[in-house]
């Protein structure tokens, strides 16, 4: 065994595929402390005073963008939001030019959401400021993955050895991919389930267990993470109707009962209540959905702090 110091200072956060267990643990440990700030009366900490963050969002988002905005502001940074309604290509300006323009304004962090997979990697190749991926197409959403792990740890005390079921539209879900990378690295057993048309071809090679019957995935699960169904998927013919989806693949009280009695119910939001998740369980005793939102803020505060200011953690590796 040797011990190495882990730090995220000046590192781009592009996905959990490329993050080590030590780096993820550092974020989760730091987030625990950051969560205390959210509960304070006066939330402003001067930690990032004089630092600037740009939220560059090429896709609509309320939850993630607000979470990043408040995370920066609670730590005293100057935060600017730029929402670009259409893709840079459609606008006629290349993504490279947009990024270089933002860089020229002296920002320290670019938080970017974009509809194209790999766009965060592209940004990191182009500019010097730290790039944090706030979702790139169906590829990754690393801060969601981290906040989900934080939530699981909060309730279960650990991740290793847990059975986590991810239910729904895996095909189009960046949340699912970040969850899969993160949870597998942390030692969880990951089961995915949904209609075959919403499971990516080849996903069985990723180290997850794949089911078409959600009952199999739910059976004795410690954590149930339900994904949002986007209604345009139905228009594309990937499943016949919302009614049929809810009936066969929707998570309700009866199905949730297949999981362990103390199973944790999660959803990245926003929810289609009555479609992928029944309203009564969404706000029931097992639900951690509201807590996930709060934890998201804490995790993002931790990340902003760590990539700008440093902070280290001893990683133990073989």
């Amino acid at each position, binding site marked *: 065994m040797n011990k190495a110091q882990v730090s995220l200072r000046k590192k781009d956060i592009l996905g959990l595929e490329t993050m080590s267990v030590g780096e993820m643990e550092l974020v989760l440990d730091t987030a625990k402390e950051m969560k205390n700030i959210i509960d304070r009366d006066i939330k402003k900490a001067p930690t990032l005073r004089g630092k600037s963050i740009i939220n560059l969002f090429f896709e609509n988002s309320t939850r993630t963008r607000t979470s990043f905005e408040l995370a920066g502001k609670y730590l005293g940074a100057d935060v600017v939001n730029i929402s670009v309604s259409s893709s840079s290509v459609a606008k006629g300006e290349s993504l490279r030019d947009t990024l270089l323009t933002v860089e020229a304004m002296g920002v320290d962090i670019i938080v970017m959401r974009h509809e194209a997979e790999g766009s965060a990697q592209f940004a990191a190749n182009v500019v010097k400021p730290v790039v944090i991926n706030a979702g790139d*197409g169906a590829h990754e959403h690393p801060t969601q993955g981290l906040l989900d792990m934080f939530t699981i740890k909060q309730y279960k005390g650990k991740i290793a050895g847990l059975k986590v079921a991810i239910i729904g539209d895996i095909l189009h879900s960046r949340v699912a991919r970040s969850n899969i990378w993160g949870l597998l690295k942390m030692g969880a057993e990951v089961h995915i389930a949904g209609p075959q048309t919403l499971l990516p071809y080849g996903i069985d090679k*990723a180290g997850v267990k794949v089911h078409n019957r959600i009952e199999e995935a739910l059976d004795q699960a410690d954590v149930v993470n339900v994904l949002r169904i986007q209604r345009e998927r139905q228009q594309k013919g990937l499943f016949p109707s919302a009614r049929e989806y809810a009936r066969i693949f929707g998570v309700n009280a009866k199905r949730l009962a297949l999981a362990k009695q103390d199973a944790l119910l999660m959803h990245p939001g926003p929810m289609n209540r009555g479609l992928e998740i029944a309203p009564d369980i969404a706000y029931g005793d097992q639900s951690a959905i509201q807590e996930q939102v709060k934890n998201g803020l804490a995790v993002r505060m931790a990340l902003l702090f760590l990539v700008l200011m440093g902070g280290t953690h001893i990683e133990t590796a073989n």
Partner: protein
Amino acid sequence: MKLLIKGGRIINPAENMDMLGDILIENGRITAVGQNLAVQGAEVYDAAGLVVAPGLIDMHVHLREPGLEAKEDVASGTRAAAAGGFTTVACMPNTKPVVDNSILVSGLIQRGQTEGVVNLKVIGALSKGLEAKELAEIGDMIQAGAVAISDDGGYLDNTRLLRTGLEYTSMFGRPVITHSEDEGLAGEGFMHEGAVSAMLGMKGRPAVAEDIAVARDIMLAEYTGASVHIAHVSSKGAVEIIRQAKRRGVKVTAEVTPHHLTLTDDELKSFNTAFKVNPPLRSADHVEALIAGLKDGTIDAIATDHAPHAFEEKDVEFRYAPSGFAGLETALGVVLTGLYHTGKFTLSEIIDKMSYAPAKILGLESGVLKAGAPADITIIDPEYEWTVNCINFYTRGKHSPFESRNLKGKALITIVNGSIIMQNGEVLK
């Protein structure tokens, strides 16, 4: 003017020849192949330690002229060909305007003679404007010099029109080259559909889309008795379908690219647009099947599918980048590194696939080293080690998946119609 190439290892797959010897060139033609040739007044090139091969032929390039000269034109594209050791290239008709009539065929042939530095062969479109609605004037184009007919660049989804095109083209003794990939099935994808696309979240182009299209094209060739050439085969299913068809005697030939033979979809994890190509780079099992198919003769030829794009077009998010990249200047090095130096293929087999086989498919008299043949010759140093640097390419397309890779093997001399037009990487015209 006489040129004597002395003491090289002459590899001429057409005649199963692999010997040390000399080649004499006079007035653009080979006049003698033998040993200890002594000729008065000839310029002598000492090829000791080098391989003397029939000039390489790339039967699948995109020179982008007319209309898309920002990406490439005849002058830049044929210089790239010369730099890569090619003495003949055949260009696809998916230009703007589309090369779908004899005027444009003649015009391009003429451009080849005035602007080009290697032999330029022209492939005419099968359908007018590549619109898959009505036949282009195929006979007229072939009489003007077109060597094959193709709607390459996309899938010809009008099966009835393809049948007619095959039947009509066969009257003139020329092949139809098909881009076989069912676009309805693959169209939304950006890369090979498999384990890598699943975790990158990128929409995939399933290999079965290629299998289905190849099966259709072969069934039509079998039904009509026409010749079909399958471009850029990339799936193991397609290899097997072609293998079975050849056993049945169907007039089918096929080509594979250097990149499909040597790269897998693992490269896409970098999101580097230089790896975006259509059909896409596939997984290792497909690559193995392609190599096996090339080895056993199921796949006849190696072609580059040289598809240059302007720098800024590729300098975007992966999904918005156009497919394709420059291939002419790396092809020989990639093939020698990946297939020869790994012991999978002999030099003779590689030269066959890159010269004699494409010449046969296109009905050219080159691709051979014998008295009377055109003096199109490539002199190769199979041991030459070099590093790919796109900035130094002659092509305008400065993207290559092989950028910064170390390759072993390179063309040192390109001789077209008896004249040395490239020496040690420098195009002389």
